[in-house]
């Protein structure tokens, strides 16, 4: 038995028990990560009781007219029609027939009105809750939620950003500090998806499992001691990073799209965004608290508005339907808030390039679950 830190019994570590716990975690299957927790009943309770969130970030800003707030027949209405929904009197775009059938589970806000009309400022305002306050950096929504509601010491990352097309959107240049701001880098996201594979998650063949654990236990002991003796924040941050990497190594299968059930992959649709929304569901089911799915900036249709929305909106329609339905059927919707939104809306009027430009004055978003009443349309 080793003694560390302040000497409190809570800080005592039993190497054998520690190894048993981590080895159990490492052997857990991708389909169920409750094995990460030493007491399965506790794991289940923890997963179910905690509030979670999946944010479908429609980066670039979708048109409200081609989604939640159609205006067919007016000069600015665009070429797509509207269809009735399961809510009497409420119509949405004809590009969204599946969501039309689950409007009783959705809360749609058609009266969003914000100030920033450029992407970066819009994203900042919407995800950080306010305009910048230099020299401080406000933490982004996922960092706040994972810090407030996340599972302490969970090997599964609490804040995950899935972004299969990072090139070109506003998040690419973010450093860890840009995300978590004053909360500290440990509350930044684990970033994956598309070109962002997570490298070096496999243990070297030259090191046995036992060696690996021995080394880690020794490293942890020494660095904790250093951290406590020297009151070193740097050592603390380093320890947090090691913990995160260890968690990632143990749950690497969660980040492997190919391990998701084929039937689910087909049901969600084969596009990169759809596949990563499915992965988001999988992460939430297995212990993540906040998963944000972006896909580049495809909604910024200053040109080809209708040519792009003919494809993007049906994809959104399907994944939102599948996600909300799955969470509902699994008993997870009550505690999982799903949000689909961009940073603003698009102009009613068409520009010369057959596109719609930025429009923060009046736009729409949709939510489901997490205690939010469904069947509500505001605005």
């Amino acid at each position, binding site marked *: 038995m080793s003694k560390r830190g302040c000497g409190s019994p809570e800080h005592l570590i039993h190497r054998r028990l520690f190894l048993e716990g981590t080895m159990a975690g490492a052997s857990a299957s991708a389909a169920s990560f409750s094995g990460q927790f030493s007491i399965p009943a506790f794991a289940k309770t923890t997963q179910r009781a905690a509030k979670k969130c999946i944010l479908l970030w429609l980066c*670039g800003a979708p048109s409200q007219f081609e989604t939640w707030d159609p205006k067919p027949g007016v*000069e*600015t209405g665009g*070429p*797509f*029609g509207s269809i009735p929904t399961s809510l009497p009197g409420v119509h949405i775009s004809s590009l969204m027939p599946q969501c039309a059938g689950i409007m009783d589970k959705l809360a749609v806000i058609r009266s969003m009105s914000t100030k920033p009309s450029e992407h970066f400022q819009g994203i900042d305002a919407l995800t950080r809750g306010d305009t910048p306050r230099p020299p401080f950096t406000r933490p982004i929504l996922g960092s706040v939620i994972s810090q407030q509601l996340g599972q302490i010491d969970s090997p599964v990352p609490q804040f995950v950003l899935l972004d*299969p*097309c990072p*090139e*070109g*959107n506003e998040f690419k240049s973010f450093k860890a500090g840009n995300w978590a701001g004053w909360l500290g880098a440990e509350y930044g996201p684990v970033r994956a998806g*598309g070109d962002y594979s997570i490298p070096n998650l496999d243990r070297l063949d030259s090191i046995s499992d036992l060696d690996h654990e021995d080394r880690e236990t020794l490293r942890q002991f020494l660095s904790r001691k250093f951290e406590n003796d020297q009151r070193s924040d740097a050592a603390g941050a380093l320890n947090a990073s090691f913990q995160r990497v260890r968690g990632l190594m143990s749950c690497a299968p969660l980040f492997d799209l190919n391990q998701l059930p084929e039937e689910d992959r087909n049901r969600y*649709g*084969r*596009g*990169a965004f*759809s*596949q990563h929304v499915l992965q988001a569901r999988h992460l939430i089911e297995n212990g993540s608290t906040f998963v944000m799915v972006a*896909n*580049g*900036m*495809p909604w*910024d*249709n*200053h*040109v*080809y508005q209708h*040519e*792009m929305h*003919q*494809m*993007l909106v*049906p*994809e959104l329609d399907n994944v939102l339907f599948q996600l909300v339905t799955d969470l509902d059927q699994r008993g997870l919707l009550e505690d999982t808030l799903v949000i689909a939104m961009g940073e603003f809306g698009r102009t*009613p*009027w*068409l*520009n*010369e*390039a*057959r596109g719609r430009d930025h429009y923060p004055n009046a736009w729409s978003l949709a939510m489901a679950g997490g205690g939010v009443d469904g069947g509500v349309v505001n605005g």
Partner: protein
Amino acid sequence: MTKSDLKAPEPKRVKEWKLPSGVLSAALSEDGEKILCGCLDGVYLVDMEKSEISKLYAHDSYVSSVEWLSDRTLVSAGYDGRIIWFDMQEAQEIRSEKAHQFWSWDLAISNDRSILASVTGQYLAGGYRYEPAAESEPSIRVYEAQEGQLLHKLPHVPSVQAVAISPDGKSVAAGNLMGEIRIYDLETGNIQYQWTTKDFTSWGIIKSHSYLGGIFSMRYTPDGDSLLLAGMGPMRDPMAGNGRQLWQKWDLATDEPKLVDQTHEGESGEGLMEALAVDPDASFFVMGGRLRGGDWNAAFFDLNQGHRLATLKTGFRITDTRFYNSGGTLLVAGATGQGKPKKDKSFSAFGRIELYETAPQDS
């Protein structure tokens, strides 16, 4: 400016009209006195003699194509997937056909006005890289033009955005988002040619990993031996709209279609090209569209040598262009931006029709 043997035309605008809504297609009557306009909000008639603009009827969405069938009947196709035959004298619809579940992107009519073809297709994600999903309905429908009898339902890969009928009325060519061209024999319905040019399609390196662009207009040369294509060159950011103004000429007189010419180096700016018109005397052609970068949005090209002969800068996006009067008259249709609403909440007229005199001469 030109190394062509042709004397450069000097297009001179002689008439112009503003229409309430953007114009996607326009056709001049045989007597040269009326112009049909397919607009975002319906079909309009411009009576040049009376200087009147009147709305004839509407589709349930944008009107993508209009054609004269005779001096009193017309046909239109729209984003509602419908083809409508209309009698102008009676001012009533003759027939309405739900041709497609999705848009009619384009409609072509044979020179003798006996056959028409309409193309459709919704681009839906079919794979991880957003390869287009297979068609859910036949992408090409061919009708007997006067009576509306369906002649062929022909397959393609969505979205099929441009169509043309050969001068002899025996073949139909259709081009799609991915730059794939299919030519079918209209007697048998069998495919004659199938090939792909990748030069018109963008796959987004940045902003969006999806496809955009493709072939937006196609026209046969008067001898039927070649096919002209128009669109925009690839872009890193597929939504920048800054691809090269691009045409290509494909030779069909050989066993396999062969690229024989395309926009010459140094003769293009940036912007989507949506319209092609070929001079009936087979001397030159015009390509038009949007000006994103450079100094023209319509240009005359030598049909045989490909050199640019003359340019136009119209100040609006060109959606359709056609020659009349043996190439002596050029009709140009299009739209400006819609602009913000006025104080009374109405919008300024943003559809545009212009007529040009061209008068090219051999040197």
